[in-house]
């Protein structure tokens, strides 16, 4: 049986990589590798996961220098030479080993007014939406975010500007801005404008390249840039 050489980050902001030897198996995922280390080699290893099938967004880590969802990343696709280096997500504080503190990431969703604000009550009938409308198709293209933090971890602008809302929060704001039921348009445009908002994006597109759900936050952010600019020109911001 062949063996994988795996270097895993241990510690918090200060720490070091620790090397492990892990048996290679068929259809093995990176999460399988981390789980093997914790269960068979070192039970003190801290990491986070839940669903194991690419739905919950909790198992993202930096694998060989690239942020990925580990439960759906096969070892074959990232460790052709039999070596893996696994670290916590970048741009987030490290709590311990592979576990990051996601509070700032989700707080920014709130700061971007990422909460739906409709006008109907539970006593009203359902609002009828045309699934094929241009606005709804734009929402559908961006709505399946699982909040894994891969885009946020891959974003250079987040690294340079700690207040920048980041691709996931801005993508969420975009889906609400294009949702015809939403009533918080003006408030949301103000939330995503300014130094920490959509215009800070440099269109590097790392978020779109690495999003495991194949969402393009860059496209949504470009839409936000246009909408905010129009509002500014009209004096509505």
């Amino acid at each position, binding site marked *: 049986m062949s063996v994988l050489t795996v270097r895993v980050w241990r510690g918090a902001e200060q720490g070091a990589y620790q090397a492990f030897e892990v048996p290679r198996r068929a259809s093995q995922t990176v999460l399988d590798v981390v789980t093997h280390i914790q269960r068979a080699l070192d039970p003190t290893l801290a990491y986070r996961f839940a669903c194991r099938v690419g739905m919950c967004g909790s198992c993202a880590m930096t694998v060989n220098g690239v942020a990925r969802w580990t439960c759906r990343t096969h070892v074959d696709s990232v460790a052709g030479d039999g070596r893996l280096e696994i670290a916590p997500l970048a741009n987030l504080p490290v709590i311990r080993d592979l576990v990051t503190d996601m509070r700032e990431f989700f707080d920014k969703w709130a700061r971007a007014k990422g909460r739906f604000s409709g006008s109907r009550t539970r006593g009203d009938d359902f609002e009828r939406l045309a699934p094929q409308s241009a606005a709804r198709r734009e929402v559908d293209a961006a709505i399946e975010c699982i909040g894994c933090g891969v885009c946020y971890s891959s974003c250079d*602008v987040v690294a340079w500007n700690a207040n920048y809302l980041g691709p996931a929060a801005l993508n969420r704001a975009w889906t609400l801005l294009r949702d015809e039921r939403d009533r918080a348009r003006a408030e949301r445009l103000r939330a995503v*404008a300014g130094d920490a*908002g959509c215009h800070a994006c440099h269109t590097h597109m790392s978020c779109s390249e690495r999003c495991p759900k194949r969402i393009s936050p860059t496209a949504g952010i470009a839409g936000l840039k246009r909408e905010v600019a129009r509002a500014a020109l009209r004096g509505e*911001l």
Partner: protein
Amino acid sequence: MSLRGEALLWVAQRASAALLALCVAVHLATMIYAVHSGLGAAEILSRTRGNAAWLGFYSVFLLAVVVHVPIGLRAVLSEWLGWRGGTRDAALGAFALALAWLGLRAILGVFG
């Protein structure tokens, strides 16, 4: 700076970038033409002196530079050096004025 001001800076940078794309292309083509034709300084000056079209084109070019460069530097200064706020914007305003003065001096030197 206000949210509206930040957004309008972005619009100004995009608009000036569009102008620059055109101006830089025309400028490079002119330079290549001048070099390939073997024009000397005296021959170039004889074409530019008193030429209102030339003056107008390079004035637009300069305006685009004066708008575009400080806005771009604003992002560089805040992201790479962490310099934000009023002092940064005042320094960039002074830098824009310096660019405008140097550019105008060059344009008028070749036009006059």
